[in-house]
């Protein structure tokens, strides 16, 4: 899509009703979606910006951010082969998980997608969300905004009003996709990116899907804004492994809501990784909608300098005999802040619920990093097994002494302890390429000037 054809209102100024209309028309969208977008824009305007007086935003200060002022749309070139993608994106792909299908969103547009022939023949669809509106309108219309509706919160309203790019994955009944499917979001403009992910896994199917967010920006660059919404529908007896890897440059403000719904005997394994950005707020809601559903929720975050990494999770037990197990682990250093707020909610009638929640934080060095951990239970059924726990501690000096007494220098010893700490999460991820990527990222974070400080 050439930049010339993009209406002016999308490229300058912020989000407005006029911009929303122009975007929808520019994308040639069906009328129902234009209406939906405009409704969402009204919702956005109606909802107040969260402040630290709101329970859900008590520790994360976004008062000086005006999200609607970011340039809402930046085009990107369509490319026909992987070798035409930006070199940095090709590197991400090379260093990522082996994949059977791939989609790349560059700024506000999907610039590249490929699906292996074998998968296409089985009816697996991976495509740009706008393209899906034409090619698979029925399925998209049925599911889009189903889990992250416009009235979820102010950011969801903005997403519904102004999203562009985005990906749609459909796995038909009974199809087992063995090799993971990978999506990359690449942002090399200031302004905003508002991707949506819509995944529909039909009865008895299985797939692994990875959303990775990356950009080259640094603290010195102008702020950029990412506002995502992820909807994961998993049918009866189906299995989805979903990974969100947020590794934005340090000029990005990241807001994302990931919500899933698991039908009878369905299994969802999610992993939410937060490493980059200046400020990141991720809501992860797992809906255990029908009996026998199972949700494993893993989280890994590592905050440094003045980063703020905020995770709000919900294990929503709506039906009996469902199981959920959450483990979020984070390391912090420098003046960073990490917030974890997790709720297990057991609705009336959701008997025999089995739900666990653990959050652990490790503070490196003796700096001013702060970890806030708020585990909560809300149980309205009497025959349930629920537990939660949270710990925050520093690297134990005696443990370090033990490791150092074997000839291991302090920095290496610290690395061992941190890797060991995260090992409880990473050992549960059966994705080799991803694990290696995480290890490198963690190693980089530990190495960041830590050596000089402890010396």
């Amino acid at each position: 899509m050439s930049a010339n054809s993009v209406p002016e209102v999308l490229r300058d100024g912020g989000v407005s009703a006029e911009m929303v209309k122009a975007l929808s028309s520019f994308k040639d969208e069906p009328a129902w979606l234009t209406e939906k977008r405009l409704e969402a824009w009204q919702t956005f305007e109606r909802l107040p910006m969260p402040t630290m007086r709101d329970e859900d935003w008590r520790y994360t200060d976004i008062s000086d951010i005006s999200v609607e002022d970011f340039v809402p749309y930046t085009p990107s070139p369509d490319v026909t082969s992987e070798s035409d993608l930006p070199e940095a994106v090709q590197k991400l792909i090379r260093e990522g998980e082996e994949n059977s299908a791939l989609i790349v969103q560059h700024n506000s547009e999907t610039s590249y997608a490929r699906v292996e022939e074998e998968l296409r023949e089985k009816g697996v669809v991976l495509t740009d969300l706008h393209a899906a509106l034409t090619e698979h309108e029925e399925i998209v219309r049925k599911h889009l905004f189903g889990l992250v509706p416009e009235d979820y919160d102010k950011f969801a309203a903005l997403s519904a009003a102004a999203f562009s790019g985005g990906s749609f994955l459909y796995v038909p009944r009974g199809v087992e996709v063995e090799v993971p499917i990978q999506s990359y979001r690449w942002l090399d403009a200031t302004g905003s990116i508002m991707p949506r992910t819509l995944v529909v896994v039909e009865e008895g199917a299985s797939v692994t899907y990875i959303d990775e967010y990356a950009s080259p920006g640094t603290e010195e660059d102008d702020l950029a804004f990412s506002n995502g919404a992820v909807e994961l529908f998993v049918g009866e007896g189906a299995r989805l492994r979903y990974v969100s890897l947020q590794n934005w440059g340090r000029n990005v403000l990241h807001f994302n809501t990931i919500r899933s719904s698991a039908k009878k005997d369905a299994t969802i394994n999610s992993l939410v990784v937060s490493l980059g950005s200046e400020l990141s707020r991720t809501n992860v809601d797992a809906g255990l909608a029908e009996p026998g559903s199972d949700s494993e929720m893993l989280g890994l975050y590592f905050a440094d300098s003045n980063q703020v990494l905020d995770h709000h999770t919900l294990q929503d037990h709506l039906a009996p005999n469902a199981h959920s197990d959450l483990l979020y682990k984070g390391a912090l250093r420098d003046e960073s802040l990490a917030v974890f707020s997790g709720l297990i909610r057991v609705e009336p009638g959701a008997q025999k619920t089995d739900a666990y929640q653990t959050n652990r934080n490790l503070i490196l060095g003796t700096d001013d990093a702060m970890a806030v951990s708020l585990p909560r239970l809300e149980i309205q059924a009497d025959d349930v097994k629920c537990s939660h726990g949270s710990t925050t501690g520093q690297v134990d000096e005696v443990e370090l002494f033990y490791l150092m007494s074997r000839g291991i220098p302090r920095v290496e010893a610290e690395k061992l302890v941190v890797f060991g700490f995260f090992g409880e999460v990473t050992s549960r991820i059966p994705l080799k390429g991803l694990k290696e990527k995480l290890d490198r990222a963690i190693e980089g974070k530990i190495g960041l000037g830590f050596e000089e400080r402890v010396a």
Partner: protein
Amino acid sequence: MLKIENLHVEIDGNEIVKGLDLEVGKGEIHAIMGPNGSGKSTLANVLMGHPRYEITDGSITFEGEDVLELEPDERAKMGMFLAFQYPSEVPGVSVANFLRTAVNSVREEELSPMEMYRLLQEKMRVMQMDVKFAERYLNEGFSGGEKKRNEILQMLMLDPKLAIMDETDSGLDIDALQIVAKGVNELRGPEFSAVIITHYQRILRYIEPDRVHVMLDGRLVTSGGKELADQLEEKGYDWVRQEFGAGTQS
């Protein structure tokens, strides 16, 4: 090889070691025996550089070098080793990964994975340990005996010049004790010295010491040959207190 002079050690303002002198020569095995609370473990930890103790006076030199200026890892690289009485648990770090990092650090060169594996297999055989043990997380969920064996395995892997063994025998049954002793005797030779810290004389039946010292109230109060250990076994620590206790000392 190891020379300690007039060592004074405090923790939280309490003096634990109160002027201790000890010299261990190359190839010698010394035993330090003493009742609970005599400062034996403090001495062991201080030799390796435990961060919680404060040295208020005196010196420790190893092969002529002042070790008090050195970090624990630097002491290890010089050839010092401490078998811990209470080894730390390190979740998520496998024994194999830990040993690989430690061996490569101490040798200051990388062994190939194959060489490392062979070395590990060989040493595990000496300690009668199953190779699967190496995949477990370091000390996590280990029984007391497994922890002690693991300490000696580390010692064999690192091949130190001086091993300090802090009550390695305590809590071990006779079979485990024999295996531990076998590990130590494996290293015994003209280049290997050891300081065996113990409450009981039992381990000294399997690792014969060249010298035996008795520690009481932060000092070594008497020294002798291995017959001193037998004497202690027979007469008990009350005898030591009567003979050498604070009341009789000036």
